[in-house]
């Protein structure tokens, strides 16, 4: 059966081969191996891009295959980041606090340690108490569980409510956008327990590996992101290629028909919505230790919209299309906004890309929607089938 899965999906093999080659190249050229042709910060950018590919693939499954234009998957991505960020921040602060308290003659009580950590973490929002949601922050294992459980449960409850009442199409998109907005507004509050708009920071420092240089850490996360992307790709390719794929594509194309064939459409949507939410959260949990900081702005509805933009430009309904879209648009975006692109002098006006990139993105997005609904991936299909 597995053989037939691969043979039916040659794109999986191609994708895995390309990804392995890319990973190997980056590792060999990184500072970690001493060749240093790729800087550590660029390794981090590439690692983050791989995570974005993973969330884009999840988005493609829920939107491109199942037809649910969710504007909430980047929120799940952010929740994953917050969940792992809580542990990173707690554990690192604990190390620092224990270090500073160890100089004292009288050993600290557990209460003193916890107060000092609370003060360090929540001082910026004028608090020192640990909110309830930090109850598990001291345990890596439990917090990793939270990465999966919190977005999973949120998606399950939200999806159950929405699908049950047959909210579909643009209504559902708007509802998911509202969910995202509510979540980011909540996190913006100082008393949300997650440091308000300061967010969580210092996440690039991995507790227990203080002595390890960032060059090594960045490569480890890069490889981990690549492995996660590969696993996610194979998993989703497996999901969408079999009969499950038939059913969810059927739901996309004609929900009523699938229902009258005897499938409980809501359960399937809920399954796809939740499983992609969990994968998005895992991608987020890998992304934010590389980014180093997470704040509520990351979760704002516009982020989820950009996610849809990547997938649309890359090409919906084909997993590699989503990955290509994420790589292409996010790298292009950082090239343009980072001042990498040369200004264009029109004589009477100089186009500075830091100002005009979003205009270009918006317009090209409209163009893609109008003229190339299959995106870049569609171009691939065309080239592959032509011979």
């Amino acid at each position, binding site marked *: *059966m597995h053989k*037939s899965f691969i043979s039916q999906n040659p794109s999986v093999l191609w994708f895995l081969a390309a990804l392995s080659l890319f990973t190997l190249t980056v590792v060999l050229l990184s500072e970690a191996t001493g060749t240093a042709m790729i800087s550590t910060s660029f390794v981090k950018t590439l690692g983050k891009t791989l995570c974005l590919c993973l969330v884009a693939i999840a988005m493609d499954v829920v939107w491109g295959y199942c037809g649910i234009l969710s504007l909430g998957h980047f929120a799940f991505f952010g929740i994953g980041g917050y969940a792992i960020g809580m542990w990173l921040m707690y554990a690192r602060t604990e190390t620092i606090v224990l270090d500073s308290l160890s100089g004292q003659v009288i050993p600290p009580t557990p209460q003193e340690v916890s107060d000092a950590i609370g003060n360090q973490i929540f001082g910026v929002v004028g608090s020192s108490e640990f909110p309830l949601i930090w109850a598990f922050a001291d345990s890596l294992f439990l917090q990793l569980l939270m990465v999966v459980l919190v977005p999973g449960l949120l998606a399950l409850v939200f999806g159950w409510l929405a699908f049950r009442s047959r909210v579909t199409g643009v209504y559902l998109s708007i509802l998911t956008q509202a969910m995202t907005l509510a979540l980011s507004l909540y996190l913006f509050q100082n008393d949300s327990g997650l440091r308000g708009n300061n967010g969580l920071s210092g996440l690039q420092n991995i507790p227990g590996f203080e002595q390890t240089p960032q060059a090594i850490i960045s490569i480890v996360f890069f490889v981990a992101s690549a492995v996660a992307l590969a696993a996610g790709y194979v998993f989703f390719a497996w*999901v969408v290629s*079999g*009969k*499950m794929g*038939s*059913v969810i*594509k*059927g739901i996309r*194309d*004609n929900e*009523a*028909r*699938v*229902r*009258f*064939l*005897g*499938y*409980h*459409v809501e*359960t*399937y949507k809920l*399954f796809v919505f939740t499983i992609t939410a969990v994968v998005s959260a895992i991608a987020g949990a890998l992304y934010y230790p590389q980014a180093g900081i997470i704040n509520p702005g990351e979760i704002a509805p516009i982020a989820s919209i950009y996610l849809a933009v990547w997938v649309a430009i890359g090409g919906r309904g084909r997993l590699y299309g989503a990955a290509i879209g994420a790589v292409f648009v996010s790298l292009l975006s950082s090239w343009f906004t980072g001042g990498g692109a040369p200004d264009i002098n029109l004589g009477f006006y100089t186009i500075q890309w830091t100002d005009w990139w979003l205009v270009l993105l918006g317009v090209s997005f409209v163009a893609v929607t109008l003229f190339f609904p299959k995106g870049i991936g569609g171009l691939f299909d065309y080239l592959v089938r032509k011979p």
Partner: protein
Amino acid sequence: MAMLLEVSGVSVTFDGFRAINNLSINFAEAELRAIIGPNGAGKTTFMDIVTGKTKPDTGKVIWGEKNISLLGLSESQIAREGIGRKFQKPTVFEAQTVRQNLAMALENPRGPFAVLTHKKTARNAARIEAIAEEIGLIDSLTRVAGELSHGQKQWLEIGMLLAQEPRLLLVDEPAAGMTVEEREKTTDILRKAAKTRAVVVVEHDMEFVRRLDCKVTVLHEGAVLAEGSLDHVTSDQTVIDVYLGRGHA
């Protein structure tokens, strides 16, 4: 004769408009039945009620030997109870192949985990091929459904219903837009299907109904106006007045 489906005293109102008015109608096992009636007679709403898409205001819909009420069930549950429905417009999954379309419809466990771990078996393949043979699409199994002709899509949809192995098939205007040969073939498929299950055909086209050669029910303003053979109902004066007379005028 034990009834497969008993609809009794059903009424439904949309914004003050009574689409179905105290409708009672029964279907027996392995029966072929045609339902005719002018526009707005409630034919499609009747199907919506039986398949769970619309909940009636009053009345009962009783199904099978165990006398299950269909009113409390969802569309997918009703479908699994053994009621298949064909829409007026051909609704097949155009992005998928004929084989995939049929495979999705095949009688198999419908839960997501069963579907996720579903394995292709020789038995299923044989069933798919048998149905494809029956609807004349055996040579098109690997084709994408969107490439099929209008008539072929209609047959594929009927094939999907057969693959569901329903006990009652509701077919809405299967002959619309078909050529004469295609109609003949459709008639054959439906008559053959009706040997082992109940088939209810909603149709406008009198020629097609005549070719089906079965019991006919005339609906008018949401209630049964007449029932019997085609010759019987076409000679009924009230039917002529409300439908045929107007239709042929």
